């Protein structure tokens, strides 16, 4: 320990040591960030007269939240929500069904290398492609309708669930799995007794979370013609029917809240 004499410090100013010790780096980063913000803000051209004009419309939308209109387009809303729910359920079930084998394949500690690489590639592809882009392509290929939406969300679910499931399996307790293997079990028995009990609670929790995400996503698929409530919402905005739009958004918000509450209960139960 280097001795620092008290007399040297008394009467001298004290400063908090900076986060980045190197002053040159610190100032470069700071000035760089500042320059970026200035450039970026300058490159956004805001048409302020258009914004001012829109403010009244914005206010109309805010007030519409207090007088939502569930009735005048009731039929459309109901059909759209039902379709969204259907897409959500089917895509979650199929997506999870497919992500279990892919997740097993993408876990380095239980899958042979070629299988691992193929499964990881599927996962990466699914995660890198935005849902909307996938939906656009699938609509182009399969035509308008909920089938494209269903396929899109199933594909997205695979990327999400398989990755998390694989990570979970890679982190599982080796001792438990080895103990089952030591009994002379077959591969399937080993997965069933040694691996499944360890990852099941988290898998159920994640499934609930994914159900929630799929519902939220299904609300936008309609914008590109892949079925669900999005189409109705789009029409409502196009016609400036803010009270109908507000009603749809409220339904979405309430459903998401209910799903979150439900998943909280289920997660508490399985853990």
């Amino acid at each position, binding site marked *: 320990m280097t001795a620092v004499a*008290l007399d040297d410090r008394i009467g001298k100013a004290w400063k*908090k*040591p900076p986060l980045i010790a190197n002053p040159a780096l610190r100032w470069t980063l700071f000035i760089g960030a500042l320059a970026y913000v200035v450039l970026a803000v300058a490159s956004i051209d805001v048409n302020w007269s258009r914004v001012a004009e829109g403010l009244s419309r914005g206010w109309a939308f805010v007030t519409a939240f207090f007088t939502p209109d569930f009735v005048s387009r009731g039929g459309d809303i109901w059909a759209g929500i039902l379709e969204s729910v259907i897409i959500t359920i089917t895509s979650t079930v199929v997506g999870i069904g497919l992500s279990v084998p892919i997740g097993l394949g993408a876990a380095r500690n239980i899958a042979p290398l070629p299988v691992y690489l193929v499964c990881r590639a599927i996962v990466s592809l699914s995660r890198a492609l935005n849902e909307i882009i996938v939906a656009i392509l699938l609509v182009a290929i399969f035509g308008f309708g909920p089938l494209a939406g269903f396929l899109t969300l199933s594909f997205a679910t695979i990327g999400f669930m398989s990755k998390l499931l694989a990570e979970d399996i890679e982190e599982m307790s080796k001792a438990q799995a080895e103990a089952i293997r030591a009994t002379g079990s077959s591969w399937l028995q080993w997965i069933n007794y040694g691996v499944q009990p360890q990852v099941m609670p988290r898998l159920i929790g994640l499934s609930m979370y994914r159900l929630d995400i799929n519902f939220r996503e299904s609300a936008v698929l309609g914008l590109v013609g892949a079925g669900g409530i999005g189409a109705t919402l789009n029409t409502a905005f196009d016609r400036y029917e803010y009270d109908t739009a507000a009603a749809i958004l409220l339904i979405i918000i309430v459903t998401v809240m209910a799903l979150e509450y439900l998943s909280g209960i289920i997660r508490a139960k399985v853990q």
Partner: protein
Amino acid sequence: MLELKKLTKTYRTGDKALQDVTLTIPKGQVMALIGPSGAGKSTLIRCINRLVEPTSGSVILDGTDITALGTGGLRKMRRQMGMIFQEYALVERLTVMENVLSGRLGYVGFWRSFLRKYPQSDVDEAFRLLDRVGLMAMADKRADELSGGQRQRVGIARALIQNPRLLLVDEPTASLDPKTSRQIMRLICELCAERDLAAVINIHDVALAQMFVERIVGLKAGELAFDGKPTEMSEEVLTSIYGEEDWQATIRNVDDEEDAEADVAAS
């Protein structure tokens, strides 16, 4: 100097943590508070600076009734009472120096503290205290890089820079090894003597308490069970506070150790 009058605390769960505790601590006295877990030691100490609101009764420090104060008055009173915590309670992601200076928060305005522009006198005092507790070289280290004993020293410096009249010390040695525990207790008692400070020290290590303090108060289920000199501690007293157990070893140990220390001091 510090007077507790009929101090009572009942928690919302119905637990009676303190019942009619009346105590007077004169200036410069170091008092240890002993008792089993759940006897209300922590609650008592926190009722003095109102980190816990007492249900009834009053706490009077040099003539001011703390329990009657509003927010501003309470803050003024709190800066006169330094507190030292179990497990140090340092802000771990701040530097040692910031932790020490945080003891001055009650004296400086928000922007000064936010910008770390403390008056030069505070900075000097902080360095003096760090030097006193032997951590001068650590000033710009982050608090979570220190060892347990070092952290508690920072905690002591933080309490002392408040320039308090009273120290409230909550289990200062609970997470330290025996040797460090003694060093910390000795440091606290020395500093109290230097500055003529009164102190209330919660401690569950009876032997350690006997070794350093001049008065011991025993608390049992929220009520006073003993009040006297360390030498008056006997098997009966310990039994009345903690319940039946073979206390012989505890007490004799202390005597031995004190003898040993006296020998060392004499040689």
